[in-house]
């Protein structure tokens, strides 16, 4: 799934998060209760942000920016895609049969990219916002110069993103996705017709709120609206180099995961 070093970091992080889950959840709730005065939230979203943990899908931590509990019914096309998906995680995981695109180091993209227990950084410059994800060292451009979404974009892993401010909410709209990635780690599909909306609010200096709305009529019978999720500012952090390397991934499978009997990757 990921490089060995990354996996080790991930596991260490997951353990730390799991240990701190109760207290962290409380502090997340506390963080949300302390927004600045309404109508006066900062429009500066710069910084390294780390999701607060949650227990939406046990034992996963920090993976419900896309909430399973609110998923609408699938279309027949969507159901066929989900049935063909063999996730590495969650109740549908079957060790040895996984076919997550991430296992081949295919690039991750939104919204799944926003659904990992890893940090991302936001950098704002005139006309553009950059998002840097530790996962696979991926960067993404969100245009903020008033341009509309392109009419007929080529399908891509990241899609084409534009944004605007709606009061104190930064709204990112993305279209032009390919259907080679999943919408989340659990195999829920993503089609070329997906329109993704992300709504961000900086509730206070240390807290960023993110809400994800997936409008994909080819996969889902109605828009999939997830509840808001909170991120914590991490001022001392730098986004590390974490690439997915197919060779290293296979080596990690052979030396660690298969001997441990934990979900060896299907190559």
């Amino acid at each position, binding site marked *: 799934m990921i490089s060995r070093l990354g996996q080790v970091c991930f596991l260490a992080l997951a353990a730390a998060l799991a240990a701190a889950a109760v207290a962290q959840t409380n502090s997340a709730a506390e963080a949300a209760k302390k927004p600045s005065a309404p109508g006066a939230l900062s429009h500066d979203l710069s910084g390294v942000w780390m999701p607060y943990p949650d227990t939406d899908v046990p034992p996963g931590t920090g993976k419900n920016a896309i909430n399973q509990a609110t998923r609408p019914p699938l279309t027949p096309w969507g159901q066929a895609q989900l049935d063909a998906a063999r996730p590495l995680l969650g109740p549908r995981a079957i060790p040895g049969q996984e076919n997550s695109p991430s296992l081949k180091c295919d*690039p991750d993209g939104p919204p799944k990219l926003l659904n990992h227990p890893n940090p991302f950084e936001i950098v704002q*410059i005139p006309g553009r916002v950059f998002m840097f994800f530790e996962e696979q060292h991926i*960067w993404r451009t969100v245009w903020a110069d008033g341009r509309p979404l392109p009419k007929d974009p080529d399908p891509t892993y990241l899609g084409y993103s534009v944004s605007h401010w709606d009061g104190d909410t930064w709204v990112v709209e993305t279209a032009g996705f390919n259907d080679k990635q999943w919408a989340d780690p659990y195999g829920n599909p993503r089609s070329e017709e997906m329109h993704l909306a992300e709504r961000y609010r900086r509730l206070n200096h240390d807290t960023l709120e993110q809400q994800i709305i997936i409008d994909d009529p080819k996969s889902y019978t109605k828009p999939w609206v997830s509840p808001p999720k909170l991120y914590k500012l991490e001022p001392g952090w730098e986004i590390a180099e974490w690439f997915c390397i197919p060779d290293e991934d296979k080596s990690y499978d052979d030396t660690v995961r298969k001997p441990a009997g934990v979900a060896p990757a299907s190559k």
Partner: protein
Amino acid sequence: MKLRLAILKTKNLIGASVAAMALVFAAGLFAQSVPKGQAAAPAGPTASDTPSGPLSHDLSGVWMQYPDGDVPGVPGMNAVSNRTRPPLTPWGQAKFDAAKPLVGPRAIPGVENNPELRCYPDGPPKLLNLPNPFEIVQIPGRVLMFFELGHTWREIWTDGRPLPKNPDPSYLGYSVGHWEGDTFVVDTIGFNDKLWDDSFGNPRSDQTHLIERYRRLNHDTLELQITIDDPKAYTKPWVSPPKLHKLEPGWEIAEWFCVMDEDNAYDNAVRKPAGVAPAHK
């Protein structure tokens, strides 16, 4: 060969532009009789580009390298010049002998083992040596570089911090930058030895200290000079001559990821039938 990949894999404005430029390059290669480091008119800069007075410290923009004829048939790949390569050490020679490049005089179709054929991420200095555009963005304390190849980005710290003493080896290394007069000097260490220095199999060890020197000669022209100091691989520092890049104001860096399945499909559909250096998987 990467250029062919660029042409066929990017289907948008950038891809079309690259394709168009590739045709210009290909035609220009045969017409060129100008000194190395300068491209043939009208694609290249002219004497009027010679800087006069203080140069801008704003390097922002999308930059595309001028074509050259350093390696026949391979346009725009000599930011790391093979003509100035110093003798290899025994370690360097062994690595070089084991490398089976996809392009250049040592290419043997069917046995190539370039790291990028397995979708390894590319890193400096090879990343700076490919006929594809990159973008520079300057923010307080950092310079960001975005490469079309592999959708890679790197950060160069400009907040005065020193190079780390014992960095973990990585594909991109750890980079700091400072200004020396009108020259932006980037120092990078902390590389791993899993990549090559260039497309021709010259090695990169974990002892590499890479120095990049950038000057914005005028509004439209960026000069880049690369020095590789890698005592494990080369018997002395490898100093390449300066290379020029052209500002491309209308371009956006496109999405171009290396995807294993797609790379295989591309080999089977295009490269193998054409008899051109099928990739060894």
